């Protein structure tokens, strides 16, 4: 296996019901979720999932409710037993771990953040954040020190002796995030972690996550049903539908080349100019005609989203947009035709 993948999911199936094993073949032969339910009274959770999640990347898994995304994330720490398949984490198949090894795996490798926060209502913020460390039998003093660090990092200093019910939703989820991070896991599992929050709070939490991630470099698996959130957060996005993987790739790829009708519908309403960066859509010099190269050009940064420079393009009407890398040298070009093609839906 390649060493830069943290998680490799292979041929993972989950069928809910009393006797699911014999039904895998039928699903493989194209039986649909509805048919399975009608003819065999079994519910198809996941079907033939393959997914590689690179180390230290932020993988978004997206789908509507019932698509199996929450089921999938619970297979990574085996809160749900699969019907068949492999779940390799650091080259070890989680699904073959003994009960004790599984507990150790959960203590040390993963931590989870939940949609409805799932905080312990009878414990204070501090006790909640140090819960994982308590389970690991840390010294109380050490556990408190580490927990206070994370309470500080998520901006909840001064609230450590409050109870969860005394906090707003956004603050509660900060506790959830701190609780997960205090455990210092390699893998952060976030199950619709921000879906229950108001839009503004949600944006705050997304920013906090991105800021923390740029520094901590965890492997994050993030579940969402919101494409904007997926595009903002994800290094890679996997789209699930009815338990199967519809498409997988980086944000630009999914936005520009939707493979199925389902994905196309998803990306239809996305404001591309707000998501796509100049470097995502730039062309190299060979694609640009000589005339344009010699005309009047305008310089933009590769990391700028289209929205940031489109007004200047409209006003200044340059013949060519020059895209600059981090060191200030040209790494690519954008013609007016290319821009309008991208922005045309």
């Amino acid at each position, binding site marked *: 296996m390649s060493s830069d993948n943290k998680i490799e999911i292979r041929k993972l199936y989950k069928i809910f019901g009393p006797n699911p094993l014999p039904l895998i073949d039928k699903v493989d032969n194209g039986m649909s979720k509805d048919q399975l339910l009608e003819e065999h009274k079994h519910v198809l959770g996941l079907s033939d999932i393959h997914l590689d999640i690179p180390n230290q990347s932020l993988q978004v898994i997206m789908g509507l409710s019932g698509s199996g995304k929450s089921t999938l994330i619970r297979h990574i720490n085996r809160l749900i037993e699969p019907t068949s398949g492999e779940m390799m984490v650091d080259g070890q198949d989680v699904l073959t771990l003994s009960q004790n090894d*599984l507990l150790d795996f*959960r203590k040390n490798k993963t931590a989870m953040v939940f949609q409805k926060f799932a*905080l312990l209502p009878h414990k204070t913020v501090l006790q909640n954040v140090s*819960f994982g460390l308590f389970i*690991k039998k840390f010294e109380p003093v050490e556990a408190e020190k580490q927990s206070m660090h994370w309470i500080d990092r998520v901006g909840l200093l001064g609230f450590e002796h409050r109870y969860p019910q005394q906090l707003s939703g956004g603050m509660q989820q900060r506790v959830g995030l701190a609780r997960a991070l205090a455990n210092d896991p390699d893998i952060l599992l976030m199950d619709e972690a921000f879906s229950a929050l108001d839009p503004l709070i949600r944006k705050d939490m997304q920013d906090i996550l991105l800021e923390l991630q740029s520094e901590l470099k965890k492997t994050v698996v993030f579940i969402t049903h919101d494409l904007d959130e997926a595009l903002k957060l994800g290094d890679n996005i996997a789209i699930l539908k009815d338990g199967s993987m519809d498409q997988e790739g980086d944000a630009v790829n999914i936005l520009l080349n939707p493979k199925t009708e389902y994905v196309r519908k998803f990306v239809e309403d996305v404001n591309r100019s707000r998501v796509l960066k100049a470097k995502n859509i730039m062309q190299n010099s060979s694609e640009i005609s000589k005339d344009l190269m010699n005309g009047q050009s305008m310089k933009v940064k590769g990391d700028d989203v289209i929205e940031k420079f489109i007004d200047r393009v409209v006003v200044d009407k340059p013949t060519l947009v020059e895209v600059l890398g981090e060191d200030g040298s040209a790494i690519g070009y954008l013609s007016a035709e290319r821009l309008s093609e991208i922005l045309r839906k």
Partner: protein
Amino acid sequence: MANQSNFFFDFPTLPKELIRAFKKSTDAAYKTFSREYGDYIETFFNPLLKFLVFWEKLLVATPWLVIIGVVCVFAYYGTRSYKIVIGIIISFFFVGYMGMWEDMMESMGFIIVATIMAIAIGIPTGVWMSKSNRAQAVITPILDFMQTLPPFVYLIPVVMLLGIGKIPGLISVIVYAIPPMIRLTNLGIREVDREILEAADSFGATPWQKLTQVQFPLALPTIFAGVNQTIMMALAMVIIASMIGVKGLGQEVLRAITNQYFTLGMLNGLAIVILAIVFDRISQAYGKRIQKHRSGDAI
């Protein structure tokens, strides 16, 4: 005509001799059993008797002012209400002034011991029931049976086995009072939010850590409702148990019934009501206190 049985008006029954033989042989078998093993069983329950006698003596021997003081401290700590504390002082003085202090102390000791035993047996049983659907399927009908069988009926085998006295009385009180303890422990643990349990699982908590850190603390308010009900049922049963030799307020009530002493009955009945209200208020207040985290107020 007289000897002719009418199928539609007389319920078809076994011959009277057969029924008598059935009753006789069952009773004889049970008597043999109790003659054979009664002593062992009594020895087995001896520690319980010592525990009970210890409490009764302690309460009777302690100066009444100290008892009132201790009860008031408990009541204040639980309820934080001076009204309830003053109410307790007045009503305890009334009971003492009317000459029922010693009887009330005996009943109080009895109820304390019965409640401690019911908790000690009921909570583990309830936990077991919550963990195993099979245990629940077996225990639930037993609890239904215990709760609906008239208490007088199960006094009989207890008395046959252990004779008249404190221990048979205590056992029948525990049997009568324990079902809510078991039921509500089971219910409280089963009601714990699945997502919170999942969170505990995701951090690698062992079943024991889950029970002690998550399920039990979150079930405590429900469990306390069980404790409260158990105390109330023990109080009710104390009167009936006096028929088989339990001393205290119940015995006086029994004396009042057999001799038609109306005032004696009323006074002792009133003392029991006072005891019930005190226990109820204090145990409910503790139950609510445990839920302080549920309020949105700053603490």
